[in-house]
């Protein structure tokens, strides 16, 4: 028989199963221990195969819970089998042997006091009549016995909720926050005001210093101008002095030089002929030139005559030569 199925557990614990396809063997209910020859049943006559239309077949759903009818049937069959088993066992139990012929077995009591064994039960009838029904009285109130201490409690007004106490933290927060905010704002304003005051003070001092600076500047300017003016004045004065000194010197010198200027002047003038006798001058200017002219003319005449003569004599001389 070859190994038709093969299953093994892997090293990592994974189980695997595989089998070659094989035909279903038809085993009868009695288990033959030896397998002489595999009997293959005809599938057509196998009870396990469902035949016919499967659409209307009721099939058990593949759940684990079996049907209650099935359960009962199984239970009944089990009971039957158990009963049959018990019956079988009973049959095999050792019992008293059968009576000898002519004798009868009888059940006998062997106790001290014999009892009549009968099926009839001694009965006696008794009657009893109750009174007419009364209304059931109400059950008395079941008051258990008092045990323990008596304790009372009562909620007074203001015990559960005291507004003043409750409102305290809220008020504290509200008032505190408001105060804080207002303090901050006031501090801010105060800071700003102090800043402004400081600024103002600074401005005042600055103005003062500025005025001082300007005053000193003005002073400087004035003094400088004054100084310059004075220097100018001084210079002017010096210059003037120098000028006057020069003038005086010049004057003295000129006076000195001019002391005998007058006679020299007159002398030179006289020598140059600026003082003249008018008659003499007249004779000089008018008469003498005329005279000279006349003389000149005369001389010229003579000159020209002589030249002419010279010329003629020259030409005649020349002619004479040739």
């Amino acid at each position, binding site marked *: 028989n070859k190994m038709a199925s093969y299953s093994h557990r892997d090293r990592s614990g994974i189980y695997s199963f595989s089998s070659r396809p094989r035909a279903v063997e038809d085993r009868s209910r009695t288990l033959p221990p030896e397998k002489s020859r595999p009997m293959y049943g005809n599938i057509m006559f196998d009870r396990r195969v469902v035949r016919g239309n499967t659409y209307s077949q009721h099939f058990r759903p593949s759940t684990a819970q079996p049907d209650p009818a099935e359960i009962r049937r199984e239970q009944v069959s089990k009971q039957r089998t158990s009963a049959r088993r018990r019956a079988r066992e009973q049959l095999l139990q050792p019992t008293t042997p059968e009576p000898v012929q002519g004798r009868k077995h009888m059940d006998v009591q062997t106790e001290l006091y014999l009892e009549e064994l009968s099926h009839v039960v001694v009965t006696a009838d008794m009657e009893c009549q109750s009174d007419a029904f009364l209304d059931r009285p109400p059950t008395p109130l079941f008051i258990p016995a008092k045990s323990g201490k008596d304790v009372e409690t009562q909620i007074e007004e203001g015990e559960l909720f005291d507004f003043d106490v409750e409102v305290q933290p809220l008020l504290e927060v509200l008032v505190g926050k408001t105060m804080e905010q207002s303090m901050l704002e006031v501090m801010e304003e105060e800071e700003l005001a102090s800043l402004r*005051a400081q600024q*103002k003070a600074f401005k005042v*001092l600055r*103005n003062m210093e500025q*005025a001082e600076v*300007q005053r000193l500047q003005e002073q400087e300017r004035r003094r400088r101008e004054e100084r310059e003016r004075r220097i100018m004045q001084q210079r002017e004065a010096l210059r003037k002095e120098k000028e006057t000194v020069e003038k005086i010197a010049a004057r003295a010198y000129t006076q000195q030089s001019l002391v005998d200027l007058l006679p020299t002047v007159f002398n030179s003038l006289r020598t140059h002929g600026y003082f003249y006798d008018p008659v003499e001058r007249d004779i000089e200017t008018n008469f003498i030139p005329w005279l000279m002219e006349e003389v000149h003319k005369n001389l010229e005449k003579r000159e020209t005559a002589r030249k002419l003569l010279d010329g003629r004599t020259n030409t005649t001389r020349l002619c004479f030569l040739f």
Partner: protein
Amino acid sequence: MAGRPMWENPLRAPVAYGRLAVPQLFAELQSPEPEKKLRALASLQDLLHDPERLYPTVTKGYVEKMKLLLEDEDPSVRSKTCEVLGLLCTHSLGRQVLLSSPLLSSLFWLLDDPSSPCRKNVLRVLKLLTLHPSGADALLTLVPKLLLKLQQQQQQEEGEQISVEEEKKVEVNEEEKVDEENQQEQREGLKMEQTEEVKDVKEEEEEEELLVLSLISCCSRRDALPALSSDAVSVLKPRLTHPCTHIRREATAAMMALSVPMAGKHRLCEEAMLPLLVGLLRDEDVHVRTNTVGVIMYTVITTAGKLQCLKLNVVSALLDLLTEAPPFKKAPRLMEEKERWTRKALVLYSLRALTSLAEAPEGRRLLMEQLPLLRRSCEEEEDAEVIRAAHAAIEVVTWTP
């Protein structure tokens, strides 16, 4: 009001939780209805007090979305937006963002807005901007415009004054005739009503004027030249004698800022402001007096100023101021500290003015007579700065060439 839960406030939009609050409110600001916008703006105003909420709003650039709101038709929306911007300006980061954003030009344009609360809010925003020096620089270009506004207002007031005077004359004439008492009472009743109405309008105008003046003085402290070139001195002149104390205070403060540069000093001397100022030395309010002494202190540095002031007998006024202030002690509380500083400022400024005046020979002569007073005040004082100023004054007085 059925259907609305009790905790919903009709004046404020509901605010989402946590990070979503501000973006959601800004989304609601896009809706066309003005009421919704007002509600959303009111809620924003409440939220932005908290710097934790303000910083992400400012850094994520939601501020530019407000530009559209500034050009909205409804004046209440505009003024509310300006209030919210004012809240932004209380923090330095908000100020910087606002200065660098295009909103600034819209704000300038809004100064001419017809609705008065809007204008006032814009002025408040601008005033907060001047807390930062670069803000004051940015607003310097605005100064001529503000001065022009003041001038216009002044002309308007003058026109009103003239008409009021005329009315008064007419009334006086009527009262001269024989009147029954009832008629008089009626007229007085009407007059009271009218004056009350006029008073309300006047108060608003005064508030606005006050804001404009304070803005001008803040900007001029930074750089007084634009104001001077726009003829600020003559514009401020009538305000020095204004009945309202605050306006006088602000006008004198502006004047002090203007008198710092040399051009301002010359201008003041030219415009003959000094008689007015000397008159103001006897004013009731301490601040007005302090500011006036400050102006004098600066003006007297120039020679012309010195001569004018000596003519007006300023020395005695200043000495009065010195003597009436009691000696100073350290004050523990802040309010007293403030008061102490104002009086101290008064004394310091007058000492400086006297120092400058002492450089003129006539002033020196006058002050030589008062020298024991100065020495006494020097010894009695505990305050270091006052002692120093007094020493300087004494030095100048006793200087000989």
